[in-house]
């Protein structure tokens, strides 16, 4: 039976960097008939290094920052006292904005009785999209020094709605913080990449708790598997977490990866491995959709 994978959104995440999120994401997208790949790891996106997309378009992403007009401000201090994020201070009768603390919520503009606050745009990064064979590649890039990649991720996922009838692979940032939550918010399924170490289990547990909190269906890919005991596998068995597939720790894959080549495009063996992984994930998603429509 050929399973349709159209319109499914799969997020790939892990508690720490270097577990294989990008390896898995890039290859899952590559083995699909047609797919959209979204790199939400905006602090250091690297999926594009593998895809080497062509016809790249770029769009700057800006957030809004309050701007105080000293002519209009009467020093009533309402904005400073209202700000939930403590992003404003009131010194020598005028408000100061702390841009790295501001969440661009716009509340200060609303409470100002003198309309002394306006908004200016502040560029925090960009998104790029291009084509690599069967894959549309979308990359979010946060400017170094900027606080939060959330606005970039929001735009990336919004833009991807155009390709909603395609399989979408979301390559998440590492960890379990705001940017990860934003990245998995609309995902139909979460693939957790795990390393076979005690440290790896600790980090796996973090994302495991996150996807449970978000009520997302999930499964684990055991990466860098060696012979002998795998603490991550033990963890999955104990917690009854579905194991979607195993990727062995082998030179061939390491070399392809360090040459920025896409394993499933270079070797039949890896094409088979990742095709079967994609099938397992799609099957899980279909099962989930049937059980919890």
């Amino acid at each position, binding site marked *: 039976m050929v399973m349709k994978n159209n319109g499914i959104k799969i997020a790939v995440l892990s508690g720490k960097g270097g577990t294989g999120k990008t390896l898995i994401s890039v290859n899952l997208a590559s083995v699909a008939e047609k797919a959209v790949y979204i790199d939400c790891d905006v602090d250091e996106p690297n999926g594009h290094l593998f895809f080497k997309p062509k016809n790249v378009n770029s769009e700057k992403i800006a957030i809004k920052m309050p701007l105080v007009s000293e002519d209009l401000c009467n020093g009533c201090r309402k904005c400073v006292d209202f700000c939930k994020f*403590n992003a*404003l*201070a*009131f*010194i020598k009768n005028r408000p100061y904005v702390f841009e*790295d*603390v501001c969440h661009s919520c716009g509340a200060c503009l609303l409470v100002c009785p003198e309309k002394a606050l306006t908004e200016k745009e502040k560029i925090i990064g960009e998104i790029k999209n291009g084509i690599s064979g069967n894959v549309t590649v979308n990359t979010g890039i946060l400017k170094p020094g900027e606080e939060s990649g959330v606005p970039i991720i929001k735009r990336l996922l919004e833009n991807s709605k155009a390709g909603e009838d395609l399989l979408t692979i979301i390559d998440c940032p590492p960890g379990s913080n705001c940017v990860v939550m934003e990245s998995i918010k609309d995902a139909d399924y979460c693939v957790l990449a795990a390393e076979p170490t005690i440290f790896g289990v600790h980090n796996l547990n973090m994302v495991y708790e996150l996807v449970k909190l978000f009520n997302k269906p999930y499964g684990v890919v055991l990466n860098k598997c060696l012979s002998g005991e795998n603490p991550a596998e033990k963890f999955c068995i104990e917690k009854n977490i579905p194991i979607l597939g195993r990727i062995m720790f082998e030179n061939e894959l390491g070399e392809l990866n360090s040459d920025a080549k896409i394993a499933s495009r270079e070797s039949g063996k890896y094409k088979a491995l990742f095709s079967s992984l994609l099938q397992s994930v799609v099957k899980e998603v279909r099962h989930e959709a049937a059980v919890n429509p």
Partner: protein
Amino acid sequence: MKIAVPVDDKRLESGICPSFGRTPYFLIFNTDTNEACFLDNSAAASQGGAGIKAAQAIVDAEVNTLLTPRCGENAEEVLSKAEVLIYKTISGTAQQNIDAYRAEQLLPLNEFHKGFHGHEK
């Protein structure tokens, strides 16, 4: 003039709180009257921007000098704009630090750390 010190307890013999932004109380000592009062630090419970809010409270209390073991960049910006001087505390109680400051034994604080962004250290 007024001196502020982040303290763990509402006593002059209290130890110095290692955090400026998230200290439970500030001791405000008036050197003209030798009177001490304690300010609850409402910034302690803030999700973010605690240093800015705590510095604001210090500015609003018309403090001239802050004695603290450390201080973040944003708080420093608020305090310096308001011309509050910052000195580095030494070991001992709040009272001992006030005495040391008055005897000109404290040095200005000149290293300011970045925010912890919700990751408490």
